[in-house]
């Protein structure tokens, strides 16, 4: 049996890293949730934005000597800028949403290379006071506690801010724009403006996530965001499938949903750690992720089409 050859301890050892990675990517998943679910916009900008956020953070810390936490704010800002470009391509120039986001994504590849000067730039945790680092989870118990406590607290603060924001007049206008554009216009909402705004907030989060992830893994890489949208979607879907019933109809359901999305990202990385432990070649990971996302995205459609048959069976 192959399974006997697997060491359960090595799986256990992989988990802390998976959780940390999941939490950091969970922030990106929040961004994907905003565009994909609230705005109903498939935004592929994120693949580029994540690397832009990472590249910006690393270069600012290394070249400009910026504090790592401050560099994260800039990562957020450049992410917003990227979102704005996609938004304007779509609203001001009438380019279909997906295509507009692909154009931005592709151009960000060049921009990211220009920011870094080459395809990969390391950042050493020994030289800088990085906000997060994979080194911290291999440290002593106090260090681990500080790391996980800090990241989880950070995520919860973000959720709280987003929850409040989407309860404001402006946040509601974004949600109305995403839910029913005709209604939004009839109620005097500038749907173009709010579409751009939502894309900016979303990509800001993705940029922030990229800045964090670059610090975590000790390098920014021009390819670090490749397939990020798929991971983000996977997190959103896992969160919805597992916790959708729990969140629905509850007070502050939206806040719970966002937490569910972050947990979805953690579960995604736990599953990845698991299949890697099962000796799945890491080259196949993206194929695996894509298939998982395709299956879960198609479930609502298939349920609708074959729902009656399924009901009759059960």
């Amino acid at each position, binding site marked *: 049996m192959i399974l006997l050859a697997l060491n359960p301890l090595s799986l256990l050892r992989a988990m802390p890293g998976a959780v940390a990675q999941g939490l950091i990517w969970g922030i990106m998943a929040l961004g994907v949730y905003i565009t994909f679910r609230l705005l109903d916009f498939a935004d592929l900008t994120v693949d580029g934005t994540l690397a832009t956020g990472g590249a910006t953070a690393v270069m600012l810390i290394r070249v400009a000597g910026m504090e790592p936490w401050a560099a994260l704010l800039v990562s957020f800002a450049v992410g917003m800028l990227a979102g704005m470009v996609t938004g304007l391509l779509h609203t001001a120039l009438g380019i279909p949403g997906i295509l507009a986001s692909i154009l931005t994504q592709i151009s960000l590849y060049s921009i990211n290379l220009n920011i870094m000067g080459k395809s990969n730039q390391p950042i050493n945790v020994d030289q800088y006071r990085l906000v997060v680092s994979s080194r911290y989870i291999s440290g002593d118990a106090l260090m681990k506690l500080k790391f996980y406590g800090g990241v989880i607290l950070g995520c919860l603060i973000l959720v709280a801010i987003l929850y409040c*924001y989407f*309860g*404001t*007049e*402006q*946040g*509601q*206008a974004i*949600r*109305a724009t995403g*839910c*029913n554009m*005709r*209604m*939004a*216009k*009839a*109620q*005097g*909402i*500038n*749907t173009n403006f*709010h579409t751009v705004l939502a894309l900016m907030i979303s990509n800001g989060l993705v940029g922030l996530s990229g800045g964090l992830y670059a610090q975590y893994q000790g390098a920014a890489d021009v390819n670090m965001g490749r397939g990020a949208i798929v991971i983000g979607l996977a997190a959103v879907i896992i969160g919805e499938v597992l916790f959708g019933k729990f969140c629905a109809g509850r007070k502050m359901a939206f806040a719970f949903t966002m937490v569910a999305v972050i947990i979805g990202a953690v579960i995604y990385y736990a599953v990845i750690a698991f299949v890697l432990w099962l000796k799945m070649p890491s080259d196949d990971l993206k194929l695996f992720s894509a298939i998982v996302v395709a299956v879960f995205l198609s479930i609502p459609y298939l349920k609708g089409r074959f729902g009656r048959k399924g009901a009759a069976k059960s």
Partner: protein
Amino acid sequence: MSGEARQYALELKDIHKTFNPGTINEKVALDGLELQLEEGDFVTIIGGNGAGKSTMLNAIAGVWAVDRGSIIIGGADVTGLAEHRRARFLGRVFQDPMTGTAATMSIEENMAIAARRGRRRTLKWGVTKEEKSRYREMLKRLDLGLEDRLTSKVGLLSGGQRQAVTLLMASMQRPKLLLLDEHTAALDPKTAAKVLELSDEIIRENRLTAMMVTHNMKDAITHGNRLIMMHEGRIIYDVRGEEKQKLHVSDLMAKFEEISGGEFANDRMILS
């Protein structure tokens, strides 16, 4: 009656709109449309398919720009304004009950969005406490049991309930003009009657100027103080007051037959 420089609630001057110009699907939808509404007019609009009824309402709402002519609401020329900028003058209810509300948002959020029509959306809280109690009172009057479901998602409501909520939303901020685009056509007869009654009430109480497109000639006669019939993008019949009240469905049927029978006749002949 009052001053000489009369200000109309709505003026449409020589409105033209052609869809898909220069293609095989070219369709002249509005063809020199002229209309003036007095303050407080409640006009019902009838006409065959493709007569331009909904197109007229969409032109007023600014869903797209017209090719020619001008649209003046309460003295303000809105011809060049984008749809969301005109919204502050208008309350709108659509044929499809899904169109007027945001399904994934709660009843109170939908109403709050409507209450801010025409205002800048700021970072202030989206629904205030006073608003909630005000909305509860408004919903109570609908008598649909919605006053206890302020935080329910609108998507959970029935079509009739959604139309009723949309009507409330449309009447908020007292619009200069209420546009009802076959807003009862998708409802069952009983619900349709109730929503119509509610429309009457809201229009009367807020003394709104309103336009209602309908396929139901009886409704067109019994509601409102004025009735217009459209054909090929123009108004070909316009009655008001007592004359309208004396109308029978058979009169309108006759008018309809006149139009369709005399396809090639000049519309002006029918008018005389």
